[in-house]
């Protein structure tokens, strides 16, 4: 049980958490990009609306990942 209270464990936990967050965000943003490219291929005339929505959704996904990264960062610092 003492293993979990070590400062080094907190560092490792922060790093692992940030890595997991990056995986999740990567999958999410990849899906958005896939969807957007497919949609633009089908309807090139709507590409501007699609691009705007793509950036917006990617920003929302990224926000969730950044929450996790901040928490991971705090685990290492505090």
């Amino acid at each position, binding site marked *: 049980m003492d293993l979990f209270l070590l400062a080094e464990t907190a560092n490792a936990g922060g790093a692992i958490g940030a890595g997991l967050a990056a995986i999740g965000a990567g999958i999410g943003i990849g899906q958005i990009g896939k969807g957007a490219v497919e949609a633009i291929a089908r309807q090139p005339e709507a590409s501007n609306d699609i691009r705007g929505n793509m950036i*917006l959704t990617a920003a929302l996904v990224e926000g969730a990942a950044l929450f996790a990264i901040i928490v991971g960062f705090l685990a290492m610092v505090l």
Partner: protein
Amino acid sequence: MCNHRFKSFTVAVFSVFFLLFAGPALAQEHGEEHTGQPAEHKEAGHEEKLNVGEVIFEHVLDGHEFHFFGVSVPLPVLVYSKEKGFKAFMSSAFHHGTEAHEGYMILTKHNIAEMGLDPKKFKSEDIYAVGADGKPDTTVSVFDFSLTRNVVQMILALTVFVVLMLRIAKRYKSGVGVTSAPKGSQSLIEPVITFVRDEVAKPNLGHKYEKYLPYLLTVFFFILINNIFGLIPGSANVTGNIAFTAVLGLISFVVILFSSNSHYWGHIFNPPGVPLGVKFILVPVEFLSVFIKPFALIIRLFANMVAGHIIIICLISLIFIFGQLNPVAGWGASPLSIGFTVFIYLIEVLVAFLQAFIFTMLTAVFVGQAFEGEHHEEAHAAHH
């Protein structure tokens, strides 16, 4: 038409960037190396380990002086405490933490270690009153109103920006570019303003867009100018400061609240068409989302800017980490790490624009959601 606007926006963005940042991007390599080098020399002398974490925090956090290419520029310190009154002096009076001035002292990582203070409780760059034993006196509560480097840089950035904008506004007032094509610096700003109007305000806010456009443009350019100033090597990380983004997020929150209508609150506290049992779960979630929206805005801008700065410093520090193992490895690593740094730096320029755009866009989306139901209500009233 829209595609054309997007194109002109990107042209504007990249021409600004190449004009302003081709020089600093190269200077970055030298600048960061210079600020890193004294650390390395010190390590060699004292046989200490290079602490990358400390270097990162020194660059990312707020401070009482600027470090430009190894030269430190002192900034004004304004402190108040009940016991010692209001004092104003330059931060150079502290001599980098080695001397106390007018009964106050500044903490640095060196004097925290020397005095054996608890590093969890005493942070460097904090100002304390000096006790009888020469150590910081925690019983005296000191209020620090200093113009730190974040504040000074924000004022500088705003001065530059206001001067630029006023010049452009004066030209429009004198009739240049109103009916004809924009000239000079007008061509730089006009595509950006029309982009915010046509791509952010109009689609999200509908017929009410003119009411919110001044706010959206102000937020957009305020974040943008501070992001860009933060990218100049040696400058402070203004937008990567949680206090800065928190204030922007709070203002957005107030704007969202003031533009909300009964329809919006009705959907939160009494969602229509939802069974009673589900309402017990849904209403708290909906209510929390009112606060989470601006909080996400705050964290997004903060984390994006901090992450960018940390990545650049980490890549530069790689040279010194390798250099500690072996000088040849350090030299070998430098072209690679400088190449990556320039690459990330260019991405950061894109992020500077993207984050300003996203903050404005999401504010517009949330404001639009807050008064969305209005049309239906008006239509209903017309029916009855």
